[in-house]
């Protein structure tokens, strides 16, 4: 029998373009969130894109000279210079008559929150016309899992050993960028590819400095199972540890996903080796801080435009 309804069900609905600009042969670990981030971002930006990649896992992932796993050109630049290398590249391209190419600074959390923040702040203050993507795996992974200012409270890294785990909260980079009043700041997450894709597309059509902060699990550094990467991304949003939101012109805050019921942070933390040492008290502290931050974010949205 011909059931028209059934026919409809058989059709696959594509939510992302089929085109791939990233290929196999790259050097990432299994379950690497940073690779998914690149794949989705390039799907949104397309081939007329140029990347500036400072020292980070991605400076290795792409592959050694003379190979590259990407279909777009890459300027491998100094660790602390992602933002300004991109701005310089953009200026240069403009001067040789290329007004079309989207120039993207693509840096890790260390290259963004720490060593690269000066150049990034300069670019943002001038509103230079680049997209800045920070893929955040919450530590210096390239050099073997050292703490960064993006490492969350409680986490183990090789420089915050279990006995002295990190006792300071993660730096609020999104608020810092929003405070520069750039046209667009967004958080995104590899477990929400449609949301990520939409945000990059939106950024693509804005001029000026656009900052996209992508949550990117790292099985090797977090001591998690590669098959948990997507699950962790979901939990990060469901627990409100890494909320998804957008800020326009530094003033209009919009939360994209509000969990009907926040999951307890413990569920997120206990899946990861880097948090396994945490006591019930420490976990309670983390819960409090996450709640506080979430409440503040809700307030930002409520009182928008700020």
């Amino acid at each position, binding site marked *: 029998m011909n059931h028209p309804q059934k026919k409809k069900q058989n059709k696959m609905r594509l939510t992302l373009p089929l085109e791939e600009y990233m290929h196999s042969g790259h050097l990432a670990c299994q379950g690497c969130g940073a690779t998914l981030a690149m794949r989705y971002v390039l799907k949104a930006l397309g081939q007329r894109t140029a990347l500036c990649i400072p020292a980070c896992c991605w400076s290795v992932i792409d592959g050694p000279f003379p190979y*590259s796993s990407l279909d777009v050109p890459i300027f491998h630049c100094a660790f602390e210079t992602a933002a300004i290398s991109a701005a310089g590249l953009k200026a*240069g*391209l403009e001067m040789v008559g290329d007004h079309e190419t989207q120039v993207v600074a693509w840096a890790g959390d260390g290259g963004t929150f720490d060593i690269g923040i000066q*150049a990034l702040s300069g670019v943002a203050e001038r509103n230079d016309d680049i997209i800045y993507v920070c893929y955040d795996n919450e530590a210096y992974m390239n050099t073997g899992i050292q703490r960064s200012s993006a490492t969350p409270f409680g986490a183990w890294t090789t420089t915050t050993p279990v006995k002295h785990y990190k006792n300071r909260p993660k730096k609020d980079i999104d608020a810092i960028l929003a405070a520069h009043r750039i046209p667009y700041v967004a958080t995104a997450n590899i477990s929400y590819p449609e949301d990520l894709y939409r945000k990059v597309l939106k950024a693509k059509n804005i001029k000026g400095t656009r900052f996209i902060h992508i949550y990117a699990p790292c099985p090797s550094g977090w001591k998690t199972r590669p098959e948990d990467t997507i699950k962790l991304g979901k939990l990060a949003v469901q627990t409100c540890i890494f909320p998804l939101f957008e800020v326009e012109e530094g003033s209009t805050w919009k939360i994209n996903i509000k969990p009907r019921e926040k999951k307890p942070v413990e569920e997120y933390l206990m899946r990861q080796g880097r948090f396994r040492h945490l006591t019930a008290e420490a976990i309670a502290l983390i819960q409090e801080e996450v709640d506080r931050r979430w409440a503040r974010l809700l307030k930002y949205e409520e009182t928008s435009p700020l």
Partner: protein
Amino acid sequence: MRKVLMGNHALSYGAMLSRVQVVAAYPITPQTQVVELLSEMCAEKILDAQFIKVESEHSAMAACLGASLAGARTFTATSAQGLALMHELLHWASGGRLPVVLGNINRAMAPGWSIWTDQNDSLSQRDTGWMQFYCGSNQEVLDSVIQAFKVAEKLHIPAMIILDAFSLSHTYEIVDVPDQEKVDKFLPPFQPKFRLTPDEPHAFGGLTSPEHYFELRYKLQKDMEKAPALIEETGQEFEELFGRKLGLVDPYKCDDAEIILVTSGTTGYTARVAVDHFREKGLKVGNLRIRVLRPFPFEKVQSILSHAKKVAVIDRNISYGHHGIFYQEVKSALYGNSSVPVFGYITGLGGRDITLNTFQKIIEETQRNETPPERISWIGVKK
């Protein structure tokens, strides 16, 4: 057109006439007028360039590298602390084969804070793979910028144009500012062999294994070795069009000289006053001004100095624990080629004046002794 220009403005005019397309710079005394004038030129549209007003010298150089990789002609200027802050990126420039031209005003390094001239800032960057031109006049500053772009872009090696703080940077001289048309004839637009474009996606500067890295550095040195001839050739071509000659070195009355004073930067001109003064008294003195330190002009230095009976190298810099840096360079160039004794003098650090009197002491000490009495002779220091 003849204009009265300060050294800093000679740099700006050199950049303007070279039609630089991207400028990124950060202010520091005594360089500020270079970028002030350039930003004015951009604002007035006399110069069709993007001026990126960065938040540091570090970002200035990084921006230049990005722009240069896109295929744009790029320029920056700095001094002392600013140049030191750029250090890592100077390697990125030469290693990336990006022919940026940088003006550096020689200023002493802090601490203590000094805004006055000496050469330790640029000489600390000697081994970064940049060409280094030490200028002696404002005309030379302007001409050197234009010529440096030509050489740098042919070889894909960046170049530093260096001038003394205040004695050039802030000193006004008559400078012939050539016609744009003529400069255009001499210096065609930048046509890099490779540039970053999505039309031909390449990865620049990625992870390079021991299988490839060595060859990249070998090639940089091999191209650097082509620079001396190219600099001379470019100087001659420039002379044909503009009537002014610049080469690797600038000898003055060296042919029959018994004592040759080796200098760099503006001290060369003071040295020449001393040369004339002593020649009047019957002493055959000459002056060799080393204009290009990297690539080192081995042949010129060897052939000119080996005729002398004594060589006195005047350094406004020091490599602590060793000697003056020009002294080391000259000595190593002469080793095995000539047995002429080389006297090493250090003077003028932190902008202490180098005067006729300074050279008198140097010449007298060199004349008095058969070989250097001390490893380092300090002139004008209060011991």
